[in-house]
């Protein structure tokens, strides 16, 4: 057991440098995905059939093909076509994660917007609000309360999916753990156990943060969430990272 703790201490710094990449991928991927979710979510409600149709095609495309394939495509195939080499495959990873989860997130945005009662839209028109005011002051705050829990699920999935970049050789947390094993097979147990625990802690922190945000968003609408529920894990109905 003493050995375990020794290798534990050896492995930790390397794993922490991997965590940095994992966090960069997760945070940047999530920001890109959030922006795309709203863009595609609103596009799917557009009056123009062209806008609706093309957003549908893009969303179905990114949901229908595996994230791993997209990742390979952005890392290996895109530079050949565009002749444009990204400085760092991490960017390609962020783009693939952002597009894939943006496609999933657009369904969440669509559902959230649909959940706002029609009367609220009518009220904003009756009050003579400008289009942006309608969204900012009335529609989005209400839709947001519905959207945060599924967004929380997607965020955890995105964190887990960021580990897929191992397959294209980006040095994230899983990659560093695998590297430790390749250097010294006896450290495999420590490296992989720590990496699992680190992922769990990250996921738990993200989950708690999203719960707090949900409570905040609902409190603003005058709907209190019981404190106990805020500490519970997000309901896991659908799995998967791909």
């Amino acid at each position, binding site marked *: 057991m003493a050995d375990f703790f020794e290798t534990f201490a050896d492995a930790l710094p390397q794993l922490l440098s991997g965590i940095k990449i994992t966090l960069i991928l997760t945070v940047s991927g999530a920001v890109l995905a959030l922006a795309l979710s709203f863009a595609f979510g609103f596009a799917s409600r557009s009056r123009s059939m062209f806008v609706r149709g093309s957003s549908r095609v893009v969303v*179905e*495309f990114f*949901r*229908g*093909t*595996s*994230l*791993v*394939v*997209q990742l*390979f*495509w952005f890392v*290996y*195939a895109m530079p*050949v*076509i565009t002749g444009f080499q990204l400085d760092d495959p991490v960017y390609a990873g962020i783009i693939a994660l952002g597009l894939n989860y943006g496609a999933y997130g657009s369904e969440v945005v669509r559902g959230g917007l649909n959940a706002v009662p029609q009367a609220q839209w009518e009220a904003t028109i009756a009050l003579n609000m400008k289009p942006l005011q309608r969204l900012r002051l009335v529609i989005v705050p209400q839709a947001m309360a519905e959207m945060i829990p599924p967004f929380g699920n997607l965020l*955890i999935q995105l*964190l*887990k*999916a*960021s*580990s*897929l970049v*191992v*397959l294209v050789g980006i040095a994230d*947390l*899983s990659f560093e*753990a*695998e590297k430790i*094993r390749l250097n010294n*097979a006896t450290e*495999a*147990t420590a490296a*992989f*156990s720590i*990496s*699992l625990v680190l*992922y*769990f802690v990250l*996921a*738990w922190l993200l*989950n708690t943060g999203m719960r707090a945000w949900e409570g905040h968003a609902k409190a603003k609408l005058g709907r209190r969430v019981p404190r106990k529920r805020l500490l519970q*894990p997000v*309901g*896991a*109905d*659908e*799995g*998967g*990272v*791909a």
Partner: protein
Amino acid sequence: MSWWNNEAALELLPLLLEGFRITLLATLLGSLVALSLGLVFAFIERTAPEYVRRPVGWVLQFIRFTPPIAQLFFAFYVIRPSLGLKLDALTVGIIVLGVHYATYNAEIYRAGIDGVPKGQWEAITALSLPRNRAWFGVILPQAFRRVMPSLGNNVIIMFKEVPVLSAIAVTEMVRVGKEFTSQHFAYYIEAFTIAGLIYLAASYPTSLLMRKLEVRFGN
């Protein structure tokens, strides 16, 4: 189209389809594990005493919150040798994916069982049906109807996740494409575009079918 080489594409296609066979096999067996083990987890969470349920719940939450790749490495390089198991990579992969998705399916089953109207339970008591009959004759058939679309979605999600098995050198479709491109230092576009299209061709019709099921079984 100077960046597309038809001959390479034609050479790749049968190789990729061969890899796709492994992908399908892993999806099929992995889903079987996930569907049956998920039901076991759901039963434990529902019927086991508190001191069993709690730790099981923690373990399930831990599995849900950690990525399959990290679990795959752990299972393949830590659990497998320490138990002295002689399993090949594909088997380990199928078990890991199966267990990962079983934790999600457990939640789906739980929600489905909770969704069976209370009157059905009262009817079971009124008719004093035996326990087995109550579960297999009354509750589960109704629960299954509700959970079919969600379970189906998880099968599709797992299908798209199978390429992670290439991390422990299972030669599924993406791995085949990767090996081909690194032998030739070329044909990246052909390999990964065809692989993507094969995925799309398989998963899009299936997801349409799931949507139909969802409408039919009215969730």
